[in-house]
């Protein structure tokens, strides 16, 4: 079965399984276990113009079917990324998506600008969940205007496919999706983590050094699917689904909800080998559900494909 998926006019991935940003490092750490070139693509850890130190530990905490993290976007900066990490990925033939972060609109644009000259980058993914330090630390992704501003600034300096990664921690995710699409996003990845907290009873403190953290893993899968469902029916650009994927059937759920590709994050920690397994078992999973390829499954659960069922309500329902 041909697993390749077309995301934009000139961006095609060999298969729809992408390593999510932040859980696969810069692709070299896991390379012995998971050859990055066999994945659809690798989204690297978020990079900023300068190194960011990150949050105090503890930075992860296990929750029911989930994980809280407050890494705090620690990263060595875009120059170190280009020098120390990108070449190995490119040499292996991996498809690379660079996740970019910033504290100001200018910082985002700055990262994109410095990446523009580098060869071997498939696309940029803008993580708009960063705190906007000029506006009291509120996340760029929480407001359609600031989300659009970041998108437009990056769009202005790159010709690469531009993915914007949406945060679920908003009242109206569709409004954000529309704003960033209007501002030039070529695709949307949904979702980033859900804000959560845990208490360390023994230490009488929040468990995470960063106090609140991002919830990921199977626990948030229903939230991610809901966002994919809503966004994929509201905007004309492709959606990449992410959140809690751990099985081939999870991948299929995301495709049917409207995603054209998926990213796999937290699963990597427990089951690195499963990433390739997802690629390998996808044909059988698609076939068992009656699809001849990933493309056929995209949005297959959307209302326009429904047939009437017995459970649908009769006319005289009260």
């Amino acid at each position, binding site marked *: 079965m041909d697993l390749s998926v077309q995301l934009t006019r000139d961006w095609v991935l060999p298969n729809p399984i992408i390593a999510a940003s*932040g*859980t*696969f*490092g*810069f692709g070299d*750490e*896991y390379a*012995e*276990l998971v050859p990055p070139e066999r994945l659809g693509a690798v989204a690297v*850890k978020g990079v900023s113009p300068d190194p960011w*130190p*990150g*949050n*105090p*530990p*503890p*930075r*992860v*905490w*296990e*929750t029911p*079917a*989930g*994980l809280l*993290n407050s*890494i705090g976007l*620690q990263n060595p900066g875009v120059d170190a990324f280009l020098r120390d990490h990108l070449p190995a990925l490119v040499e292996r033939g991996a498809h690379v998506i660079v996740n970019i972060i910033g504290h100001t609109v200018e910082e985002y644009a700055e990262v994109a600008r410095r990446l523009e000259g580098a060869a071997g980058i498939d696309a940029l993914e803008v993580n708009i969940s960063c705190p906007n330090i000029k506006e009291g630390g509120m996340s760029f992704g929480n407001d359609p205007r600031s989300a659009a501003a970041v998108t437009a600034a990056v769009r202005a300096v790159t010709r690469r496919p531009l993915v914007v990664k949406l945060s679920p921690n908003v009242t109206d995710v569709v409004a954000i999706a529309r704003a960033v699409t209007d501002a030039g996003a070529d695709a949307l990845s949904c979702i980033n983590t859900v804000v959560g907290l845990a208490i360390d009873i023994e230490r009488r403190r929040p468990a995470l050094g960063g106090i609140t953290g991002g919830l990921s*893993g*199977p626990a948030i899968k229903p939230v991610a699917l809901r966002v994919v469902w809503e966004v994929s029916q509201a905007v004309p650009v492709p959606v990449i689904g992410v959140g809690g994927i751990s099985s081939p059937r999870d991948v299929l759920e995301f495709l049917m909800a409207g995603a054209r590709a998926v990213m796999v994050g*937290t699963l*990597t*920690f*427990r*089951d*690195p*080998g499963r990433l390739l397994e997802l690629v390998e078992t996808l044909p059988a999973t698609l076939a068992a559900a009656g699809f001849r390829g990933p493309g056929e499954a995209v949005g297959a659960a959307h209302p326009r494909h429904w047939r009437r069922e017995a459970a649908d309500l009769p006319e005289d329902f009260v």
Partner: protein
Amino acid sequence: MSTRVQELEAPILERREPAAGHVELVVEAPALAAARPGQFAHVRTPGTLRRPISFSRLDPGSGTAGLLFRVVGSGTAWLAERQAGERLNLLGPLGRGFPEPPADRPWILVGGGVGIPPLYAQAQQAPAALRPAATAVLGARSRALLVMEEDFQALGLGAVVVTTDDGSAGEAGTVLGPLAAWLERNPGGVVYACGPTPMLRGVAELSQGRAEAYVALEQRMGCGVGACLACAVLAHGPQGPHYRRVCRDGPVFAAGELVW
């Protein structure tokens, strides 16, 4: 030094209960048996995350490795129920272990609680000729919680000293007492330590300027391979303190590298 990292299904050959609430599983896994003492395996459990456990013993000859742990939560409770004949999914060997013991100086192993097992591996892997120069100080809260004393006794070390908080075995007090005395007698020796953070802080303070000291740290982990930056520990850097990764840059650090 370390072999390539692998994800493997290792059969459990033996299951022991070395102390109340402690279990040791010996697995067949040649790739892990060649690890450096102080390295660890990331053990799959039913939870979202794996559990890091150091190697308690290593036998490259028979291709076996030991994992000795205390039951503290859901993951170790699940692990404690595993039986010989079942398989464990392990990721390893991971991290940077202890350096080899010195050929020309006295050395000491300072272990507290479940910090003891990796130090046993360190002593076990030392050439027999170097063992008489070694002292082991094993600390526990009480006799019932002390692990591996007999294993240490069988190695032919220079001395094996036991301390318990309640005096139910060996000297009453912590491992820091015997360590201080040893440092006094053995200037320029090498210290290898593993145990709770307050103990390691004490080890670092006592050793500073007197001995080369290596400590094996614990930190909450995500990936275990250096990709996620979860396992941060504050270390001194050229431009001031910065975070390093316990899973890849450690778990063993020179005590002086760290911000205590």
